[in-house]
């Protein structure tokens, strides 16, 4: 019964998110800026989602760290949280919601299809480093998502349709600067995530690094971010090329977070 209530609250949150995203997309299409209602719906969705995660946490006695349902739910929550803060604080680029929300819709749709069955926390997950490691990972993903939203605007502006819809936003150079700022902050948090993960792995498995699939892909993502930032700081990178770099980083990060758990049964199994 409790599980059903949690799911209903989660569905209500998803409905609020979808409404917010849909209104944001329609707003861009009609060249309107219904920003207050979008922000309100995103906040409402976050409140409901937090409630749903909290109820499940209380019922199972552990956080959303084990199954794909829990990982997806907690990541939709954290990405929405970071994006909502960015939407609230970065008023000049709010129409990027039309780019970001469809990515989150995919994750929400996936979330609706996976089993919400009960889970148990593995013995090695009883550590504060789990929260620190996962917390840093979520901040990294959140900032990368905002960077992707800005990059999406830059790329869509190369078409007449996108150029017309996003013409009131700052110039591509400014958007590119903001997107790389987000990527740079993400890089700091990704580095912290790797350090926290290494501390946890040392305590849990007696080795700080073992090149298991998730570690390998996390490091590849870290290297891709490092290459992108190095290229941006060292060479003259056009906004379009920079945008493609950020999208490549996001794809690598997304595959690491959500793809690797499908190909490995190792202890370090996508618990982000």
């Amino acid at each position, binding site marked *: 019964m409790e599980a059903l209530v949690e799911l209903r609250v989660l569905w209500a949150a998803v409905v609020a998110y979808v409404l917010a995203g849909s209104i944001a997309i329609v707003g861009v299409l009609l060249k309107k800026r219904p920003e207050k209602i979008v922000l309100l719906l995103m906040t409402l969705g976050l409140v409901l989602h937090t409630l749903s995660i909290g109820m499940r946490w209380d019922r199972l006695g552990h956080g959303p760290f084990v199954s794909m349902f829990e990982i997806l739910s907690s990541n939709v929550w954290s990405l929405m949280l970071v994006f909502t803060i960015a939407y609230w*604080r*970065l*008023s*000049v680029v709010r129409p990027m919601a039309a780019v970001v929300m469809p990515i989150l819709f995919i994750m929400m749709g996936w979330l609706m299809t996976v089993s919400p069955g009960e889970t*148990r926390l593995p*013995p*090695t997950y*009883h*550590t504060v480093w789990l929260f620190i490691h996962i917390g840093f990972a979520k901040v990294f993903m959140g900032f990368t998502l905002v960077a992707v939203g800005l990059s999406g605007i830059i790329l869509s502006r190369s078409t007449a349709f996108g150029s017309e819809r996003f013409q009131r936003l*700052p110039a591509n150079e*400014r958007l590119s*600067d*903001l997107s790389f*700022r987000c990527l*740079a*902050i993400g*890089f*700091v948090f990704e*580095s*912290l995530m790797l*350090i926290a993960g*290494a*501390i946890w792995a*040392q*305590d*849990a*498995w*007696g*080795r*700080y690094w073992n*090149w298991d*699939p998730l570690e*390998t892909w996390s*490091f*590849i993502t870290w*290297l*891709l971010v*490092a*290459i992108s930032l*190095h*290229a941006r700081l*060292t*060479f003259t990178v056009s906004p379009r090329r920079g945008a493609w770099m950020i999208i490549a980083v996001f794809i690598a990060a997304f595959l690491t977070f959500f793809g690797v758990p499908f190909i490995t049964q190792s202890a370090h199994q996508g618990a982000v």
Partner: protein
Amino acid sequence: MSFLHRLASLRLTAALMAFFCAGILLAYFGKLPFAPVISACLSVLALNLMVMMATNPRFRQQRSLFVFHLALLAIILLVALGRMIYLKGEAELVEGLEFDGQLVSMEAGPWHPWRLDQAKFINHGFSVAYAPGLKRLETRNKVSWIEAGGDRREAEIGDDKPLILEGYRFYTTWNKGFSLLFEWIPDGGEAGVGSVNLPSYPANALKQAQQWSLPGLKEPLWSMLQFEGDLIPADQEGHFRLPDNYRVVVRYGDQRWELVPGENQVINLPGGTLRYLELRSWMGYMLTWDATIPWLLAASTVAVLALAWHFWAQFSRRPWNQD
């Protein structure tokens, strides 16, 4: 352009990082071995970084960025040093016995300062809880050791809570099972006690047998533990325990004996007498040693703090919300 300036090129850095990324991918998919790829890429990157730091005055003037790269260099050197001095191994220890430094398997760097014989501790038994579906939960293992001052210390360790002795970190693992204790009394010789560790339980529940040998005997012995039912029910919660009723089957050549605790426990073999003593548990430990770890953590922390400092200084020059 001089050779040094070419070696310090930022374009070369970008190319090397791309090669590093490609190398890891190839190693991941099994096309190349990990160790040489990582060693080669990190060595060239470290060289590029060192020459850049030495030859580029503008790079040195950006203090935060310089500290970040210095810390990266320290990380590379520490990782290399770590590979020279590390040890990773596995040991099995029967309940009630003392660890004597013997490892079942191990890998170690050439400069490892062997101090395993000083890392003595006694395994006082363990508990392992299981969830339905034979999902292993928490392992708790009581151990004791004598400190340098002569004080006896006790602790409870687990998969994520190591015993640290002489810098060696001992962790419990999934690998544990039953051990048969025998006494071997050779004709005219001195008696000795030994144990036969059976394969890990419940992972090898249907293979609780082991072949072993005794000093002076031509053929190996074969022993099997027999008991009824499942000690850990697969469909409900349970815990690891020794069987209440069991028998031990011993084979030597064509001869076969069934030993029942409390009844017949003695076998006469050519050259001596074998007496079954008791059944105990054994725990498989994973142990690691790497003195560079605290320094690696320090260097990594400095690297991230310096990077954050650099970006903070960069971004604070222009507000985020400015058109």
